[in-house]
């Protein structure tokens, strides 16, 4: 009689363990489904942010021309300021929540030369931030201006450039 009862208790216990395991598994499946949805939402928002930022970042005071080239200009990057900014970029590493920021001269067409203090202004490519796990990039067109001198006369030289912003993949 005792044995029968013991078997019954064991049966119930196994049943309950199986039931618990089933619910835990369902719970885990539900959680992972929820988390993947959350990650997707976060990525979509980051993507949206990168799209907006690619069109707005050139107007940030760290890059913008302000009135250095005559009147106030929109989507104008001060090339000299950009070069000066390179020395301060570690300070700005978390500032915009982006993983990559590059500015590439596209017209007049020249071969790609990465800008550094030794070759500036004879270069075409500013690599400001280039992090790992970068997602797709978003671009917008800007004018890249600087002061030039020719036979002692100073003039504003503006070229067409592309600003490339990429965000971190979560």
């Amino acid at each position, binding site marked *: 009689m005792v044995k029968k*009862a013991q078997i019954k*208790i064991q049966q119930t216990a196994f049943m309950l363990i199986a039931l618990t395991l089933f619910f835990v598994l369902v719970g885990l499946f539900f959680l992972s489904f*929820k988390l993947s949805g959350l990650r997707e939402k976060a990525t979509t928002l980051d993507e949206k*942010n990168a799209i907006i930022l690619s069109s707005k970042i050139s107007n*940030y005071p760290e890059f913008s021309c*302000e009135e250095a080239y005559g009147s106030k200009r929109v989507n104008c990057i001060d090339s000299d300021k950009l070069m000066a900014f390179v020395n301060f970029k570690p300070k700005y590493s978390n500032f915009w929540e982006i993983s990559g920021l590059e500015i590439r001269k596209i017209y007049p067409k020249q071969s790609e030369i990465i800008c550094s203090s030794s070759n*500036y202004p004879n270069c075409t490519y500013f690599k400001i931030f280039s992090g790992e796990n970068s997602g797709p990039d978003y671009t917008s067109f800007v004018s890249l201006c600087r*002061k030039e001198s020719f036979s002692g006369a100073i003039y504003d030289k503006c070229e067409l450039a592309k600003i490339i912003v990429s965000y971190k993949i979560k």
Partner: protein
Amino acid sequence: MKKAYLDIQFSWIFAIIVGAIILFFAIFMVVKLVKTESSSQNVQTSKEISVLLNSLETSYEQGVSSLISLPQYSRIYSTCSASGNFGSQGILVNEKIYGKWQESKIPLILEDKYLFIDNYAESREFYVFSKPFEFPFKIATLTYLTSSNQQYCFINPPTAIRDEIIKLEQDNFVVSESNCTSESPVKICYSSGFLNCDINVKYSENFLVKDGKTYWFVDDASMYAGIFSTKEQYECQMKRLVKRVNSLSEIYKEKILLNTYSTCKSDVLNELESFIFYLNSYSDSKDFKNSKLILTELESENKYSGCRLW
């Protein structure tokens, strides 16, 4: 017979106890999940607001206004920390679901935003407008968030402010010559002689008084910042902005030292260095009082130098 009866009873008791434990655990998990879900929803709303703030980032246009509609009746809080390279802005959203506030304690932290809210804003619809802060060059875009339920009445403001507020077309902003007709508005008075003012702005003297506390400002953007924030938040955000000014001044200094500037002289270096010295000694908005002279010098030197720095 008696033993079998006892056995059955024991297995039932055992099943009930374990079942109760499982049920308790399941209920506990569901409650936790609901809390996590509401927190994640709040963080998501904060993130959406931050994305919207990016689109309000100004270039040269003055004052841009926009309406945010949230799916739930919510409270939006702004937190501020002045530590780190540029300090940080926190945005916290708490939603009201079935008459109960879903308290979220995780703010969305941003380094490049400056959001001003008077304590907190509560509604389903919020107005945000932004304005560039210049000191003396452009530093950042300041954004002001107000609840659509809260009316603000600007009494007898200077023409520039009046025109700007009218141009914003925000339903919760009213400009009046003498008295406010709307119900329980925040009264912002620009000249003495008006009664029951919540905020007294001494526009020409660059300060305003709110709840007995003085807020010093340097331009219209920082004046609005004072109107739409608490003293603590204002001082913290001003500290963050001064850090940004300092960094931008260093960038401009570096720009002067670039080779291209050997042919195109900028005579601002000395003024810029004394400006950086002034910025390093900044402790609170009261120090803005001493900035007028140095700002004028810096601005005129830049305006009339061979090559303008900004």
